[in-house]
């Protein structure tokens, strides 16, 4: 029982730390986004609160907390309150199976930088994120607003459609690695070919196609430009969260950014070698460096996200669906076939 309780304690501490770090990361992702987009658009971005606006996220959170929390009169109250929670919890849950660092030794304690390594890790993420659709759909429905309803309907259709190509593109990674556990997938990507090229999945022959399909569908899953149809502010005002204010809106906001981070983390784990990277120096540095590589890879993805947002216009709803079903799904299906042929040929 003591082993069990120490496990429980360890996991609880990990969870608290991860959630705290995650929310902090979200706050600073918003800062990063505002800053980078601002510079793309030749303006300054946040620059008043703190040095280079570094305290801006805190001010934003305070503003959200202090704002009046309104509920539309005709709204279905229970669901209206529930929806942001349904959106938020799965988003936060899916981070639990992602390994963000190597095993580190602190004195006698060994710490694995991962909350739990499920052997159905990827499936778990899919399961959890598929529940997140309800938050958006119900939020749209419960607000009793036509714009919200259309946003909700759009998003449920979009998320279901793109989950398909998302899943299919991951299948080819599974074919190559032969495991569903994210920890093992990362372990398999250690080492180098010819001493130079890291053994990342992206460099394995057909997997760059699945990376492409994965990342495009991931952008759609997270409702970001050019696929941000559910909240297309120029058509649907603010889509499913038109009626939301204060911290309920903040939850949706948080969810979007957590999803961005999760998706980038999965992409890093599946295709870019997770926390692998050159390690050197004393022991403590060796423990920290994987974490650093992991975070920098994620930041690179986030920057790409922000870059697309600053550059591209938005798809139309029917084009989005056509793109998903007529291009991405067939492409990822063909990629699965191709990958299995390659795997069979190698074996």
């Amino acid at each position: 029982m003591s082993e069990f309780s120490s496990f429980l304690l360890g996991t609880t501490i990990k969870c608290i730390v991860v959630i705290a770090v995650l929310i902090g990361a979200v706050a600073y992702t918003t800062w990063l986004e505002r800053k980078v987009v601002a510079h793309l658009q030749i303006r300054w971005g946040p620059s008043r609160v703190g040095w280079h606006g570094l305290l801006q996220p805190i001010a934003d959170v305070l503003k959200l907390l202090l704002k009046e929390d309104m509920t539309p009169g005709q709204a279905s109250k229970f669901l209206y309150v529930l929806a942001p929670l349904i959106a938020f919890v799965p988003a936060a849950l899916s981070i639990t199976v992602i390994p963000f660092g190597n095993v580190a030794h602190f004195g006698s304690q060994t710490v694995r930088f991962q909350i739990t390594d499920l052997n159905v890790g990827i499936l778990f993420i899919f399961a959890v994120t598929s529940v997140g659709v309800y938050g958006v759909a119900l939020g749209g429905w419960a607000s009793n607003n036509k714009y919200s309803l259309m946003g909700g309907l759009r998003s449920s259709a979009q998320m279901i459609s793109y989950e398909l190509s998302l899943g299919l593109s991951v299948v080819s990674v599974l074919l190559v690695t032969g495991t569903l556990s994210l920890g093992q997938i990362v372990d398999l990507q250690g080492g180098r070919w010819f001493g130079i090229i890291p053994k990342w999945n992206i460099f394995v022959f057909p997997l760059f196609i699945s990376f492409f399909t994965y990342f495009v569908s991931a952008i759609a899953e997270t409702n970001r430009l050019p696929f941000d149809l559910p909240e297309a502010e120029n058509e649907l005002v603010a889509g499913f969260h038109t009626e939301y204010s204060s911290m309920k809106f903040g939850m949706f906001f948080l969810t979007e950014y957590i999803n961005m981070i999760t998706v980038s983390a999965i992409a890093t784990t599946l295709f870019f070698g997770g926390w692998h990277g050159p390690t050197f120096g004393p022991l403590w540095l060796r423990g920290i460096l994987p974490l650093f590589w992991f975070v920098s890879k994620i930041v690179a993805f986030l920057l790409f996200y922000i870059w697309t947002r600053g550059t591209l216009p938005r798809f139309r709803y029917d084009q989005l669906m056509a793109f998903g079903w007529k291009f991405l799904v067939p492409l990822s299906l063909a990629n699965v076939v191709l990958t299995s042929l390659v795997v069979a040929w190698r074996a």
Partner: protein
Amino acid sequence: MQTIVFFIFAFIAVAAAINMLVQKHPIHSALSLIVVMAMLSIFYVMLYAEFLAVVQVIVYAGAIMVLFVFVIMLLNPREESHRTRQNRFLLVAGVPLGLCLMAEIVILLRRAPLGENETGRQLVGTTEAVGRVLFTDYLLPFEFISVLILIAILGAVVLTKREL
């Protein structure tokens, strides 16, 4: 320990199922059903069927019930009224009939010779194990069912086309 967990979740499952019947608006019923399914997923984990547990959430909660919610949102029906024109006796008869059925099953279960798990082997429904059985012993049904689902897709598309 496990038994306590079981009872907690079983209670939630039954409560949610009852709530599904009591709620008037279909969307509340659908949400209650999702809770039931989530609880079942937990039971699958307790029964070491981890693959099924995940698939339960992906397929039932993530796909089928989303479809339900989607249709409910699309049609936006009003709250159900219990004033039915015909078959009013079903209302009266439904609950006793169901309770009778339940009693029968419970009585049968009490008589059934269900011993403890004899073999010491711990069967774990990992993805690999399930996949192995699925693609060896059950390959033919698997193929059939993929055809079935294709037909279902076609059927759904044809049915929802405006001009029937």
